[in-house]
Each structure stands twice: as structure tokens, then as C-alpha cells.
């Protein structure tokens, strides 16, 4: 068995009386492509927020490469090698495509203030190279100087992925990347995510599009009402009665 890159142990998050995520434990192995699905309000995004340090855990732990990262700030977690994209895009609209990505490349390096101000040619060259490589990877080099706000919606998704890739992450968390894409765009995205996995990147994918998740993920974690109800390969999940019930609302 390959080593677990990310381990989640009984992660719990309460918002007042609502238990958004209830004692969820799972792990992601190095090089794996894991899907996270569940009906609306199942706690998928909350779980992502717990992992990326945006929302503090009520109880439980998150470990990354064996190191306890519970309670770290999100920019620190970003620098450790966990990059994420957002369900509703969070690109920087008034900056150029290139600058968007180079913020990712720089943030990951975590420049100390004075060196960041002084620039330092060699370091900024490294950042440019990294940024260009990430843009190349998603096919946006030609638009590098365009304003991010002027990109088409689908392209902005790739821009956000490029920004995450420029951080050179070991774990990439994609929050509903297919939302708002049409069928052919979704197929293209599926192939792209697969290719990232094939290059050795570990990917965690939250998605509403069941077909997408089932076709590319090796393992699927299913959440319902904040609880994990399944954690198995796609075929097994598809037949799991608990999953069917959660999705179809089968009566007892």
C-alpha cells in the first residue's frame, strides 16, 4: 500500500446546532485520484474547507505527509503543497492572466518581504518560468497578457487550475471544476484531470457531475448529511444501497 498523503481523522465541524461534517475519516494516497460526492448540503465543501485550513475543525485532525496540519492557516497550508480551486471562481479579475498565475508561483515560494520588494532577477525569472510552464500546461500561453476578467468562463476555470499548478502542489483539490461547463467541455476537463494524475499529481475532486467522477476517479467518498456513507471504488459505490438511498431518497 502506498503511503497516505493526506489523512483525515474524525473531522467534525459544527455551525451552531448544525453538524456540517460529522466524524469523517478518510485518506488520500500518493498519486491517487479521489472523488468526493454527495447530495447538496452533504458537507463536501465544508470538508474541503477543513482540509485547506479555511474553516477551523471543531474536533478531529488532519495530517499531511504524517505531519499534523490541524489549525494551520490557509496560506501556510498552501505553501506546504496543497493547492485548491474554487466552486465559484476566485481568479483576480483585474490582473493579467500571467500575473494571476505568478501570484500562485510566488505565494508558494513565500518570499520574505524585503526580497519580494527588491525583486531579485534570478528569483523572479524562476517565478516567470514556473508561471509560463503552468500556463502552457493548461493552454493559456497565448492569452498571458489578457485581463483575467476578459477570459471566457471555461478558460477562467483553467486559469484557476494553472494558478494552483504554479504552486507546484503535491495535492490538488478541485471544487466542482465541471460546474457550468457543457458536455464536451466536461469531457475535455476529465481528460485533463486524468493527465494531471498520470503525471503523478494527487487529485481530490468534489463534483456534482456523477458521470465525471465515476469515469475518472479510482475511489469515491460519499458524504450525506455530514457523514461518510461510502468509501469505495466507483463500481461498488454505484451499487451501494446507502448511496442510492441518499441520492434517491428511498423510503425505509
Amino acid at each position, binding site marked *: 500500500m502506498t503511503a497516505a498523503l493526506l489523512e483525515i481523522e474524525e473531522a467534525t465541524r459544527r455551525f451552531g446546532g448544525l453538524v456540517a461534517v460529522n466524524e469523517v475519516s478518510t485518506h488520500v494516497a500518493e498519486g491517487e485520484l479521489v472523488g468526493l460526492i454527495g447530495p447538496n448540503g452533504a458537507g463536501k465543501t465544508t470538508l474541503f474547507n477543513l482540509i*485547506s485550513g479555511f474553516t477551523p475543525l471543531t474536533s478531529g485532525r488532519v495530517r499531511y505527509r504524517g505531519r499534523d496540519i490541524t489549525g494551520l492557516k490557509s496560506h501556510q497550508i498552501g*505553501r506546504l503543497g496543497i493547492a485548491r480551486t474554487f466552486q465559484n471562481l476566485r481568479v*483576480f479579475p483585474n490582473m493579467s492572466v500571467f500575473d494571476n498565475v505568478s*501570484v500562485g508561483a510566488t505565494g508558494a515560494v513565500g518570499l520574505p518581504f524585503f526580497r519580494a520588494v527588491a*525583486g531579485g532577477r534570478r528569483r523572479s525569472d524562476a517565478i516567470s518560468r514556473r508561471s509560463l510552464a503552468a500556463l502552457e500546461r493548461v493552454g493559456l500561453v497565448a492569452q498571458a497578457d489578457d485581463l483575467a476578467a476578459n477570459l471566457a468562463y471555461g478558460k477562467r476555470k483553467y486559469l484557476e487550475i494553472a494558478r494552483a499548478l504554479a504552486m507546484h502542489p503535491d495535492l490538488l483539490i478541485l471544487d466542482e471544476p465541471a460546474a457550468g461547463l457543457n458536455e464536451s467541455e466536461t469531457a475535455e476537463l476529465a481528460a485533463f484531470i486524468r493527465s494531471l494524475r498520470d503525471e503523478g499529481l494527487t487529485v481530490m475532486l468534489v463534483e456534482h457531475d456523477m458521470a465525471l467522477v465515476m469515469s475518472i476517479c479510482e475511489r469515491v467518498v460519499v458524504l450525506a448529511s455530514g457523514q461518510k456513507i461510502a468509501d469505495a471504488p466507483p463500481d461498488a459505490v454505484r451499487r451501494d444501497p446507502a448511496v442510492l438511498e441518499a441520492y434517491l431518497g428511498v423510503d425505509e
Partner: protein
Amino acid sequence: MDPYYVQQLAIGLSLGMIYALMAIGFTLIFGVLNVVNFAHGEVYSIGAFAGLLLITAFGPPLLAVFLLVLAVGAATGFGLERLAFRPFRRFSDEASLKSRAMREATLMSSLALSIFTREAMELVFGSEFQTVPLDYLINEPIALGPVTIVTGDIIIFVAAAVMLGGLQYLLTRTATGRAIRAVSNNPLGAKYVGINTNRTIVLTFVIGSMMGALAGIMVGLYYGAIFPAMGFTPAVKAFVAMVMGGLSSIPGAVICALIIGVSESLATTFVSSVWADMVAYSFLLLTLVLFPQGLFGKGRDRV
């Protein structure tokens, strides 16, 4: 053209540069936090008093005075953020970063800090004008052909141009500047790509306050008038420049600050100095009525 008008134009430009330096503080902070910092005028007064204290205590060269004032400004900005803004940012999600409640809370806290600081300065120094040692006044006349301006006009113009140029370089060419722009574009997105948003916010306070403090000492030495409430008027003018410029556009704020400065100077010439203050307010009214997004605003792209 009558040299007298050229002279007024030069004075208007240096006045506009002062407003521009002040407006930067408002604009940068509005950019990252969507709030107005009401204590900005006091930063200006603190800058002037810090310079004056140094001058009366040690009498160093002018450049040293400016450098110390910049340092004091930086420290003031840092403290200001800690005291009036940080406590209302306990939750760092985007909703509370840009929420109305947080905005209104910091309006109050920065206003409170502003009143407190001004009163404290009046308690210590008294509310009347302080005398500035004559050697330090920057009002030596310089004759440029038929036009006569004073050293202060040049010093203010050059110092402000250097600061503004430096800021432009910082924002567009350095990683730190990209971080500032990223945070004002989308704080949460910035966080996730590894930017320390809190540090970036502090930095905007530090930069804005350095410029405000420098503006304060330069005006103090230009007019020879340093008093605790001196920051109020330029802060209002700078605020108008920010609104005219479209709230978070730095070039917009600078251009509008220059427009206000020159118009005031011309109003003094053609009408009377009593009317000069009306200029800024009329501009504000006209902008709000005719260009609600500001002259250089980009519309509502920052939801």
C-alpha cells in the same frame, strides 16, 4: 500667459501632490478592505509633529527629518491597523472581510481613534500653531524667469513624485505588489495561493501612512503651521479625490487629487481663498451625481 497664473498653477500642482499622497492611503486600504480609514488625517498630523520634535531636539538635515517621518508613519500605520482594524477581523473568511457590519465597525473605531489621537495631541502640545524654526521652512523663493516659486513647491513635487513612482513600481513589478493587488481583487483566492492576507493588509496601512506622514511634515514646513487638527482638511480633500477617482483606482485618485489642487489654487486666484474649499465639495457633488462610479471607476466588478 501672465506669469502669475503659471505660479498659481505650480502651487496648485504641489498642493495636488499633497492630496495625492494622502489619497493613496485611502485608496490602498479601501482596495484591500473596502473600508474608509477615518484616522488617516491624524497620521498626517503625527507625521508633522514627529518631524517638528526631531527638528527642535536635534536640528538634523532635512532629508533625515523626512526619513524619520517616513519611519514614524510606518509605525503609525502598523499601530493603527492593530488598534482599529485587526480586532474586527477575527474571522478571516471573505464574507466578513468585506461585510457591512465589519465596515461600519471600523468606521467607528477609526473615527474614535482619530478623535482620541487629536485630543491627546492637543492636551500635550496645545491646539494652537507650533512655531517652526525658520531655517527649516521650505519657502525660499526661486525665480524661474518671470515666474517665482518657492523651494517647497519643488521639494513637495519631487518627493511626492518619487513616492508615487515607487508605489507604482512596487504594485506592478514586484511580488509584494502583486500580492496587494491579488488581495484587493479577491482576498480568499489570494489566501489559498499562499498569500498572507493579514500581512498584506498591514503593509497597505504602512505604505499609506508613510505617504500621509510625509505629506504632513512637508506641508508643515511649507506653511510653517503645525497643529493637531491640521490633518482634517487635507484628509477631506484626499477623500474626495478617492471618490472622484473611483474608490480603488490609484491613478484615478492621483489625477483627481491634482485636479482638485490646481482648481483650488485657481479658485483662490480668480475668486477668493474663502471659495477654494468649496471646489472640492462641488467636485464631490458633481461626481456623485454625474459619475456615481467615479471618473476612473471600473463599475461593479468587485462584488
